[in-house]
């Protein structure tokens, strides 16, 4: 009896995703610890040091202030991307005029390395302000929101639009009952990917443009060879990004339960 029960337990443990994640993390941590102990470098903290650094930061008021400063740019920039990007993408998907007017600029944003624009931003009237950081976050994230929203509208099954027309739907009704719900899965994918890019933008702008917030902290710790705190900061950024993406993914599934969750540029 007990063997049956333990077999069940073993099976449950080996079948669980979490088990493998913990296992790979443990192997990774052990390898890191071994390498760092042997290297004895000022630049590579041990895994355990990083963990301690992580908790030190969580109790540090300075750190929290930096985090809030960074996130101001993230929240504002991401909000602007969503509020402007979704309607713009939807319009581009449905109306040729909008597509023609905006497509060039979208492509420029899509192919230009954003880092190259940072010096230009620095020399602009915005200079080193919060506005400047917000602009960069927007430039990083809005493209993904627009492109996915546009694809969402285009992906809507044309036979649904025709069906609605056959029952006498107005353009407005087609938007509300067919195009918007139909493009919602792709829009949500765009929002999620845009969020990831917004986090990237937030950190990059602080590293390259304004030594503010988290990016500023990273530069500071690097300057003082505080490798444990530097690594701890990076870990916290990663965790924040993961948490945000998880929330976005949850929201995506929540509002579009009928959809198979796949979008364009999923890997971008």
């Amino acid at each position: 009896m007990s063997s049956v029960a333990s077999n069940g337990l073993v099976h449950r443990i080996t079948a669980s995703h979490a088990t493998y994640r913990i296992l790979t993390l443990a192997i990774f941590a052990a390898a890191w610890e071994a390498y760092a102990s042997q290297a004895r470098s000022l630049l590579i903290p041990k895994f355990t040091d990083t963990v301690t650094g992580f908790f030190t930061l969580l109790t540090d008021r300075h750190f929290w202030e930096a985090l809030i400063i960074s996130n101001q740019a993230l929240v504002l920039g991401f909000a602007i991307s969503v509020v402007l990007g979704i309607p713009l993408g939807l319009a581009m998907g449905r109306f040729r005029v909008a597509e023609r007017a905006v497509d060039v600029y979208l492509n420029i944003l899509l192919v230009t390395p954003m880092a190259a624009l940072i010096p230009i931003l620095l020399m602009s009237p915005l200079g080193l302000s919060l506005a400047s950081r917000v602009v960069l976050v927007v430039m990083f994230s809005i493209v993904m929101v627009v492109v996915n929203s546009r694809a969402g509208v285009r992906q809507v099954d044309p036979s649904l639009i025709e069906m609605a027309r056959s029952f006498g739907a107005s353009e407005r009704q087609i938007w509300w009952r067919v195009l918007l719900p139909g493009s919602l899965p792709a829009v949500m994918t765009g929002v999620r990917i845009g969020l990831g890019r917004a986090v990237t933008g937030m950190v990059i702008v602080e590293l390259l443009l304004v030594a503010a917030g988290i990016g500023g902290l990273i530069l500071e710790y690097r300057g003082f060879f505080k490798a444990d705190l530097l690594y701890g900061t990076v870990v916290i950024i990663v965790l924040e990004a993961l948490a945000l993406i998880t929330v976005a993914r949850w929201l995506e599934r929540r509002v579009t339960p009928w959809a198979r969750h796949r979008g364009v540029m999923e890997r971008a």
Partner: protein
Amino acid sequence: MIEVSGLNMTFGGNTRSGGSVEALRDVNLRIEDNEFLTVLGPSGCGKTTLLRAIGGLLTWNAGQIRIDGRPVTGPGPERAMVFQNVALLPWDTVLSNVAFGLELRGVARAERERKAMELIDLVGLSGFERRMPRELSGGMQQRVGLARALAVEPKVLLMDEPFGALDEQTRRILQEELIRIWERTRTTVVFVTHSMDEAVLLGDRIALITARPGTVDEIVHVPLPRPRARDIGSIERSVEFVAIRSRLWEKLREMQPDLRGPTKVARAS
């Protein structure tokens, strides 16, 4: 009454390739009130195009379509369509889908849901109101499509190969159901199909359409008695059914370019 007169329709032609397709040429057709007309023809003959034109979803080059004397310029509340791919809204329940046409017309929620429940019952889907379309089989989805069209109480029901994508058994059951429902409601129906059996079984008359360009080749009366719902099997074995069917086949075979060749070879040998 639906009157189609001198209808011509050409697709394309304005492109650089210059290749235009004449889909319909001089189509003339009269569909009486309370009549079940089936439109039969080889695939690609423009029968679906004709139906969509009657539905007001397309524009044409010349000719006119009138319903009770009024020319068709777009979709109208007296017509409702049933589509081959059903076209249900995947984010809505069966109930909302059936009520969709009424919703677009501004009918209050309580009223349209009451009406929708009535039709869900008529098509035999009671108990499935809260299900999502993807939870239903193809046959059940098409019942929803039919209920949605009937919910707006159309004077004319336009059906575009609604059972074409279904498996044989499901198709037969739905044919029976459609006959049963139609014999009760007697709504004017234009039913496009490429199945000879279906055309004979369902129709009072059959409009035979030739391919490229599509035009009405012949109108065949179906003298089979009604009600037919009770015993489809014996109808299909009846002398009349077999006679009409073989006559339709002769006609259709003449229209099939790829079959004309081999037939001649067979005769020669």
